[in-house]
């Protein structure tokens, strides 16, 4: 099925009509290509989470419409018959380990598939497969999820979403609070799902290094608007603008900028560590060839 997500003039106001009213999205029009690995970045309160929660209709637009997997979500969309859409769009919230509740790991992972009417045996198979995907050892399946470590709990929660076999996966800051190794494992998992299963991945993040390492597209949000949409190299080509958006550069780019300020003649701003190394080698060799 077509996995393209299309936002058309979407506005979302929290608590409309009260003194607490807040415009979280204003007239956002953006298309997230099916099969892409799209990162959504922007400083705190720019509307990233609000944007992604529209994709599986947890939030409905105050105005405008969203087209996703053949369904159109408008302000008039009711809460009925959304199950199919929500099965299609998997959503991993920030600190997803907070949603665990079952007595055993396997039961918690089976919870999603069973809600979508899958039989017990099938749900168990899906759950085991999901545990394998996220790298959880099979021996953990009968443990209580509350006895696991933080990183393991997070993987159980992610497995709970993957067991529903979504075609679009939304990850809202999936690595917050993890150690570097846990961080890399989760990001590698996202890449594996994208490349091997053709999942459309939408990643909300503050980690610019992840953006350049993993994403094919980037959406930059500011004050409830999409201000830029393009490939990582387009987004980070203008360091001044990036800082204006209260964002950081990827660490390689930041390092390169400092080198340039210090007088090292780099021609372009590399985004990844490898490219940075190449660029530096280029400068050194270039320098040697002049001698």
């Amino acid at each position: 099925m077509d996995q393209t997500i299309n936002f058309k003039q979407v506005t979302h106001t929290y608590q409309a009509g009260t003194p607490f009213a807040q415009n979280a999205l204003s007239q956002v029009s953006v298309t997230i290509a099916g099969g892409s690995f799209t990162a959504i970045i922007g400083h705190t309160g720019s509307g990233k989470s609000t944007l992604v929660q529209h994709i599986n209709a947890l939030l409905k637009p105050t105005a405008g419409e969203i087209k996703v997997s053949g369904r159109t979500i408008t302000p008039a969309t009711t809460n009925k018959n959304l199950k199919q859409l929500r099965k299609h769009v998997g959503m991993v919230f920030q600190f997803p380990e907070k949603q665990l509740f079952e007595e055993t790991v396997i039961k918690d992972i089976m919870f999603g598939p069973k809600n979508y009417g899958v039989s017990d045996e099938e749900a168990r198979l899906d759950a085991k497969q999901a545990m394998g995907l996220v790298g959880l050892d099979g021996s953990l399946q009968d443990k209580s999820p509350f006895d696991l470590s933080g990183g393991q709990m997070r993987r159980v929660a992610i497995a709970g979403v993957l067991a529903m076999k979504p075609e679009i996966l939304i990850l809202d800051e999936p690595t917050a609070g993890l150690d570097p190794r846990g961080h890399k494992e989760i990001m590698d998992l996202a890449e594996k799902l994208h490349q091997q299963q053709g999942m459309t991945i939408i990643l909300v993040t503050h980690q610019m290094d992840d953006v350049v390492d993993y994403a094919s597209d980037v959406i930059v949000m500011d004050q409830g608007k999409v201000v830029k949409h393009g490939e990582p190299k387009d987004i980070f080509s203008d360091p001044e603008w990036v800082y204006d958006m209260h964002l950081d550069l990827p660490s390689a780019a930041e390092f390169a900028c400092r080198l340039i300020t210090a007088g090292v003649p780099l021609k372009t701003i590399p985004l990844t560590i490898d490219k940075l190394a190449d660029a530096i080698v280029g400068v050194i060799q270039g320098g040697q060839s002049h001698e």
Partner: protein
Amino acid sequence: MSNFLFGRYLPGSSWVHQMSPQSKLMLSFYFVVVIFFANNIWTYAALSGLILLVVLMSGVSIGYFLKGIRPLIWLIVFTVLLQILFSSGGHVYWHFGPFSISDTSLINGGFMFIRCLLIIMISTVLTLTTTPLAIADGVQTVLRPLKKVHFPVDTLALMLSIALRFVPTLMDEMETILNAQRSRGVDFGSGSLRHRISAAVPLLVPLFTGAINHAENLSTAMEARGFTDSEHRSKYRVYRWQRKDTISWAVFLLIGILVLFIRKS
């Protein structure tokens, strides 16, 4: 949930906002007591006039108040219906078994309606114009005399302020958990009663786990910063009795005396 007004604070700098919390707390309590003395059209008119004045002085729009009352409307209707159907006396228009409708019961029902409205209005004004922490402070001040009989007033006030402080946090967390479980295919608020009760488990277990974690973290943090409940504690914010409080009390007392005079004896 989001249009539930009761218990929310609306920042502002109106007359009512500036009054000290302990006097607002006592005034609201006093007002509710006075409401129970009202028993005819004139007394209710006087109290309604007073509450209108209070709403005006709070700087919050009346339309906003009425919207906030909407979620409570069924509670009010139920109370009024009981009053209409079960009070006796007067000219009976209709009766069936234990139920009857008479002119007295209709009037009593009407009064009950106004009474509910007045009580909700005054408490809404209190919570809209006073931060939860200020309310806890007010309670502490009001209860201070009980210290003489070794009632743990400070501990109680601390518990109250911590509880109030965590209401928005837990609400937020509930929202997130609701959304997370919805994404996993739970249908909240539809289906049979049994289905609905079983749908609450995936919501309540994480919510309680979270609350207990919060409590543990908070107590660790408080201990780390040297908290004990025995010492005399100074306060960052001190609420003093002001002229606005005196004037407000004078107006409320006058209306109270007026009500005592014009009520049906």
